[in-house]
């Protein structure tokens, strides 16, 4: 009986990955006690992570049925990352309870689950309209999270407002794009790009372009990143938005691009959009990160630069390029968890507050330092691995300029991420340490340890590369 139930759950895991967190969110919101609400949210997030890893494992490493389409490599690769990261973030929220009022805490926990459910849904949706709904659900939950602390910090409201404006524009572009594709292809199934003869390729190309631009806004890619600094840099929700929402949005972008590459008429247009947005993100993100005076903003803009590298890799439109994009998504999540998580654990935001913390907050300092090394593209980190795979894929088809962009991103990383290590270990403390007190702060530990280990996976990355290659092959329709 139990075995049958578990098997049923495995078969329907894509559906459960959306409904499970949503039910958990409803329960978490309904419980007025902050700690009880957090416990419910954590359980729901952990269950979702288990389901997601099972789904990813079966889809990428075994030939078992997963209930997702044969092109869905991006979903199978990223959903476990998203759900796993979501579980770690939800656990860590237990240590951040002081940041939110008792009244608002249950809503915050519920919103985190909705963010996870929304982006997982968008990554597993079979048609563009479902994807649009899932993206908007996740986005609005993110806006709610950004605003949840508004009664204590008015800047949070400003960040939420900017997100709302950006999201509105993004939603309009998305919806318009879905409409164009529906007219151009005759249906909104994602597989239709591969299976149907496109009646109006120009209209469809414009539609896909609009969808990608709408998603680029939601990912915070340049030049649509105007909301990133204020939303990530001042609000308490940076951990969720910076680590999960950014990954979800860029993964959905790559997923849509992957489906569109299956249609020969759309490939060039998709590559052009990804290239332009990617290159702009690398340059602008790196410049902003270099000028950042606040750890969250630095992490947010470093994320923009990483999104640029991901999009440039995906723009190659080859299995190698898509695999490189997926490896970089892994690196991006690990770095974001370490940077935003380390920053939250330390409690300070301004860069000078990091001075001399290497000894007093060792785990958070190691996490931030390892993430900084990954952002620099230091060898043996997963950041280096992702960029190496991208250069390998780019040079293979003569995209030398993409290799140059990656080297430029790494050089900028040396400058802005190097500052973090310098402050943590080579400066004297200028202010008392105000880190989260009490035993609850240990809830940061799983997230930071996992992030450190994930970054150091660059030492022996065989299974990560195998998974990324399998996912990329699936995206290109090469998998069985």
């Amino acid at each position, binding site marked *: 009986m139990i075995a049958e139930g578990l098997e049923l759950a495995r078969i329907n895991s894509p559906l459960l990955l959306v409904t499970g967190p949503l039910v958990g969110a409803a329960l978490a919101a309904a419980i007025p006690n902050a700690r009880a609400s957090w416990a419910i949210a954590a359980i729901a997030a952990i269950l979702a992570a288990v389901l997601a890893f099972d789904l990813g494992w079966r889809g990428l490493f075994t030939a078992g049925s997963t209930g997702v389409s044969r092109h869905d490599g991006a979903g199978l690769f990223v959903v476990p990352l998203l759900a796993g990261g979501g579980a770690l973030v939800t656990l860590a929220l237990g240590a951040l309870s002081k940041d939110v009022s008792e009244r608002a805490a249950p809503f915050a926990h519920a919103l985190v689950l909705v963010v996870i459910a929304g982006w997982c849904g968008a990554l597993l949706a079979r048609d563009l309209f479902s994807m649009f709904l899932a993206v908007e659900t996740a986005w609005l939950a993110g806006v709610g999270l950004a605003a949840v602390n508004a009664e204590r910090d008015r800047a949070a409201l400003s960040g939420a407002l900017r997100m709302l404006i950006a999201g509105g524009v993004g939603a309009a572009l998305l919806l318009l794009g879905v409409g164009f594709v529906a007219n151009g292809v005759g249906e909104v199934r994602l597989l239709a790009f591969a299976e149907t003869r496109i009646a109006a390729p120009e209209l469809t190309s414009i539609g896909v372009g609009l969808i990608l631009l709408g998603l680029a806004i939601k990912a915070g890619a340049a030049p649509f990143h105007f909301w990133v600094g204020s939303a990530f840099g001042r609000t308490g929700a940076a951990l969720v938005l910076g680590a999960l929402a950014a990954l979800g949005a860029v993964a959905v972008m790559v997923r849509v691009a992957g489906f569109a590459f299956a249609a020969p008429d759309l490939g060039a247009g998709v590559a052009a959009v990804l290239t332009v947005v990617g290159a702009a993100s690398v340059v602008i993100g790196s410049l902003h990160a270099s000028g950042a005076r606040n750890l969250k903003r630095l992490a947010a803009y470093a994320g923009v630069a990483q999104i640029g590298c991901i999009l440039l890799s995906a723009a190659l439109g080859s299995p190698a390029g898509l695999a490189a994009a997926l490896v970089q998504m892994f690196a991006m999540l690990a770095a974001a968890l370490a940077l935003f998580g380390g920053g939250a654990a330390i409690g300070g935001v301004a860069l000078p507050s990091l001075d001399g913390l290497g000894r007093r907050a060792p785990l958070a300092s190691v996490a931030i330092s390892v993430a900084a090394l990954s952002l620099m593209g230091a*060898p043996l980190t997963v950041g280096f691995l992702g960029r190496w795979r991208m250069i390998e894929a780019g*040079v293979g088809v003569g995209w030398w300029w993409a290799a140059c962009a990656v*080297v430029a991103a790494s050089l900028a990383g*040396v400058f802005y991420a190097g500052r973090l290590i310098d402050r943590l270990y080579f400066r004297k403390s200028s202010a008392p340490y105000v880190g989260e007190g009490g035993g609850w702060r240990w809830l940061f530990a799983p997230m930071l340890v996992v992030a450190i280990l994930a970054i150091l996976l660059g030492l022996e990355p065989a299974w990560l590369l195998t998974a990324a290659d399998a996912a990329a092959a699936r995206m290109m329709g090469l998998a069985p």
Partner: protein
Amino acid sequence: MSAELSLLIALGAPVIGAILVLLLPKPPGLRDVLHIGAALAQAIAAAHLASVAAAGNTTRVILARPLPGVDLAFSLEPLGALMAALLAGLGVLHAVHNAGVARATQDKGAQRLMAYASLASAAMMGVAYSSNLFTFYVVYQALTLATFPMIAHGGDEEGQRAARTYLATLLGASVGLLLPALVWTYAVAGALDFRAGGLLAGRVDPLTASALLVLYVFGLAKAGLPPVHGWVSAASKAPHSAQVSIFALSVLPAGGVGMIKVAAYVFGSALHEAALAARVLLLLVGVSMCVAALIALSKQDLRERFAYSAMAQSLAVVMGTLLAHPTGLFASALQVVALACGAATLTMAAGAVYAATGRTEARDTAGLGRVMPWTFAGLAIACASMVGMPPFAGAWAKLWLIAAAADTGFISAAVLAGAAAILTFAHLGPLAANALAGRAPTDPFKRADGASIMLVAPVILSGAATLWLLLIADPLARFLSPLWMGGS
């Protein structure tokens, strides 16, 4: 002891030593024993590996496989074995010197300097034994990270600023130039393994070869070629014992060994394709040698003078590799040996003088040779070697270098190398002569017992090491012949 185990000991002993020294900084006796013991273990392992290489055997250790088809691997070949054995041997003397300086200056943070020196030594062993360009890049970066805290050791604002300049210059050059060169090489050759005869041989056109050579030469900023030499000035602010690590035992030699490995194992005969770039670079290297020697002449601070002097010597290594000739490669290898012995002696002598007398300026050393005869005898030998006076190591290196330049028709390079030697004499000769011939100062020592044996012995032993090339130049040429035989 198996060769694999020796390789692991040579790489790992200093790391373990560094950890132990940091964990057990007191009592000072235990700290010093741990520091010297780790260096000794490394030296014994490196000497064993040199004997294995001399017997024509090899070994390989793979630590990880971070990229498909690219290992983090270390292997034994003649050049790496020679350099590792030499530098590890000098490292023992440096460890004794560190202990002597720590005791004489009562430095409370001496264990940190010792630990970083050990880590730098481990990274240098990694550079010497690196089996491919990727491994070389990893340990090359690790060397930068291990040495930069030594510059900021004093904790003052000037030291921290210098440390940041050092880090920015070396990391910037390696990420911005060396990494693209590495990627390009991988794209052209499909592999990154160091290969006798050259990885790029027969695979590159003149334009690609020239562009790659420029990227490598400037990317290997540790060799000190302008305009990526800003770190030299920054590192001259480092404490005395750190300078030994940086200028004699790890950073400058890493640049030199890197250049030789790139020339012999990456380019090989493809270096002839890059003749145009090599010609321009040779001119730049020759002029830079002379300018560095002139700058050294203008410096009164011993640390700064020796830093620029060592930079000029390091550039001679680069010159030898750019000549694209077996004699040039041999001269470069000898020059690394001469640089390591000479610079170690000079910087340890400066450290001993500072520890015993508190003096740091060249003008204040007049007559000190009369009260510190062994230290200044070592310094004089090292000066003679750096200038290129026979029978010391530097003489053979410069002789081969000028011969190689003449053989290949680069007379201007030979002339510039000769001019640099004269300028080196100008900034080192009078220093040694004044110290030995001047009037002895009254009451020069900070402590009544003067310089301890731990300060004096490493200087004179390291100075004496400059003589050994006199005895083994021919066997050394045979030992190193695989370096250029693969391509001929």
